[in-house]
């Protein structure tokens, strides 16, 4: 598939109706090669993979198993350790509830982090309602977890810990090896949400001390509606099924498999495995270019550690500018303020708050996420757009005026309404 086709399909012109897409962490476009591979499976090779009695079913089953191998290869797992799901949300629910329920006789305490995705936090909250206890650790201001604090949170009855590999909002990479080793030493089952990690960081589950790991297709140029859960075989981790029925996926997850979507995930993960090293060099260069361009603006703050971070992400707060009006101002680019999943509400990003950012800075944050189809021209356009719009909004901002007048905003008594 030539690059020119990709560009034709995906290129935004930067005007308000065709913005430049810089929201790859919310969802990625389906790679044209992935779409091409999927389409035959919804037209010619349709069939229920569980129908063992006719070739329609066999073809589907073979395709599903090939895809399982591709997913396993990207993350250094055995294909038998991969369970298909409808997406990372289901993987997270299945891993956390499944392991907590299965091992509840061992203990009822769970550890997780306040910057996890809602699919982890809300699942742990649900388990709290069912009688489990949970510790939610705050990360350091860098977004990274302090290993000593993690160690200290472990109790004799701690049964499960869930820590994400790469944060969706700020892109920081947790030290999964170190956290996993602590879990191993203490007999704690370790789940990792890797939805934002595949194709961005190397994952080798043969070496990583991780028991359960969640994956998503649509964050790695695959289709929406499919994901996977890694369930370690050696030592064997057991989970209680959360969805019951025909006993698909060795009883761990029932429901007819969407063959074309699984095929799409397999192809997306194959491409990620083969191209990620080269791609990430290119993306890092673009991200750094964007960062240098935006750092010319006064009063900007990068959220999250810049070193231990995927190259795809740049999360910046523009002080004295309100987030939603900022989003309105930058309609020429498609970006996100806070995570996509929370942007329906007016709450400032809980992730940035967990880093200790003030509400104002949290409100004025923008997540730029760069991906496979981002170009130099996109980045140049973004820098010039941001500079112009930030100037305009600050002209409107009473807070900027006060800041420029030397007023200490933290000492002002606000008439909160």
């Amino acid at each position: 598939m030539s690059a020119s086709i990709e560009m034709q399909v995906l290129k935004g012109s930067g005007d308000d109706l065709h913005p430049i897409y810089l929201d790859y962490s919310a969802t990625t476009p389906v790679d044209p090669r992935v779409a091409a591979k999927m389409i035959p499976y919804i037209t010619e090779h349709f069939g229920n993979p569980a129908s063992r009695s006719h070739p329609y079913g066999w073809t589907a089953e073979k395709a599903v198993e090939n895809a399982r191998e591709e997913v396993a290869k990207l993350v250094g797992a055995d294909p038998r350790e991969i369970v298909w799901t409808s997406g990372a949300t289901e993987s997270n629910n299945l891993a956390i509830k499944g392991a907590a329920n299965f091992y509840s006789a061992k203990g009822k305490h769970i550890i997780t982090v306040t910057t996890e995705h809602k699919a982890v936090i809300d699942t742990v909250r649900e388990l709290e309602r069912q009688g489990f206890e949970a510790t939610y650790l705050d990360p350091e201001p860098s977004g990274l977890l302090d290993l000593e604090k993690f160690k200290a949170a472990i109790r004799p009855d701690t049964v499960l810990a869930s820590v994400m590999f790469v944060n969706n909002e700020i892109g920081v990479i947790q030290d999964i090896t170190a956290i996993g080793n602590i879990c191993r030493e203490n007999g704690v089952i370790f789940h990792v949400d890797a939805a934002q990690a595949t194709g961005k960081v190397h994952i080798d589950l043969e070496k990583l001390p991780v028991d359960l790991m969640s994956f998503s297709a649509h964050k790695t140029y695959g289709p929406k509606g499919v994901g996977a859960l890694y369930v370690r075989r050696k030592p064997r981790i057991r989970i209680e099924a959360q969805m019951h029925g025909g006993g698909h996926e060795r009883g761990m997850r029932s429901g007819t498999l969407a063959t074309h979507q699984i095929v799409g995930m397999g192809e997306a993960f194959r491409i990620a495995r083969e191209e990620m090293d080269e791609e990430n060099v290119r993306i890092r260069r673009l991200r750094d270019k964007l960062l240098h361009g935006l750092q010319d603006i006064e009063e900007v703050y990068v959220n999250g550690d810049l070193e231990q971070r995927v190259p795809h992400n740049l999360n910046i707060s523009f002080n004295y500018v309100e987030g939603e009006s900022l989003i309105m101002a930058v309609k020429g680019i498609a970006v996100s303020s806070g995570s996509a999943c929370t942007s329906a509400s007016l709450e400032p990003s809980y992730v940035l708050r967990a880093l200790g950012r003030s509400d104002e800075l949290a409100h004025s944050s923008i997540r730029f996420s760069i991906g496979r189809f981002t170009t130099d021209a996109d980045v140049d356009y973004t820098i010039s757009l941001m500079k112009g719009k930030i100037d305009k909004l600050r002209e409107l901002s009473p807070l900027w005026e006060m800041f420029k007048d030397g007023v200490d905003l933290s000492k002002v008594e606000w008439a909160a309404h």
Partner: protein
Amino acid sequence: MAYSDKVLDHYENPRNVGSLDKNDPQVGTGMVGAPACGDVMKLMIKVNDSGIIEDAKFKTYGCGSAIASSSLVTEWLKGRTIEEAYAIKNSEIAEELALPPVKIHCSVLAEDAIKAAVADIKAKQAAKEAA
């Protein structure tokens, strides 16, 4: 979020952006909201001796609806008496801009800003008379 054309117009071309001299005895300032809540509105009105608002300026830190609400009221205020200004209701602002329910608070904030600015000018006048 689907904004009305009027909101977009005020947002794209805000009217009367800026500040007046806050030490001018004829200028009343209303600052409402809080950065933590995501919106701060500063409204300044200049009132002549007959109690008529001659000029109005605003600066707003907030969403598009907040900017539009404050821009709109600066247009409305000019030429009105401070009593008339005081009587402006948030519902009129919300209706004029066709604000969606989740954005009604922006019109409330604008009404509060007017009331705060009027209160400020009245306090200044009272202080002047007392002096």
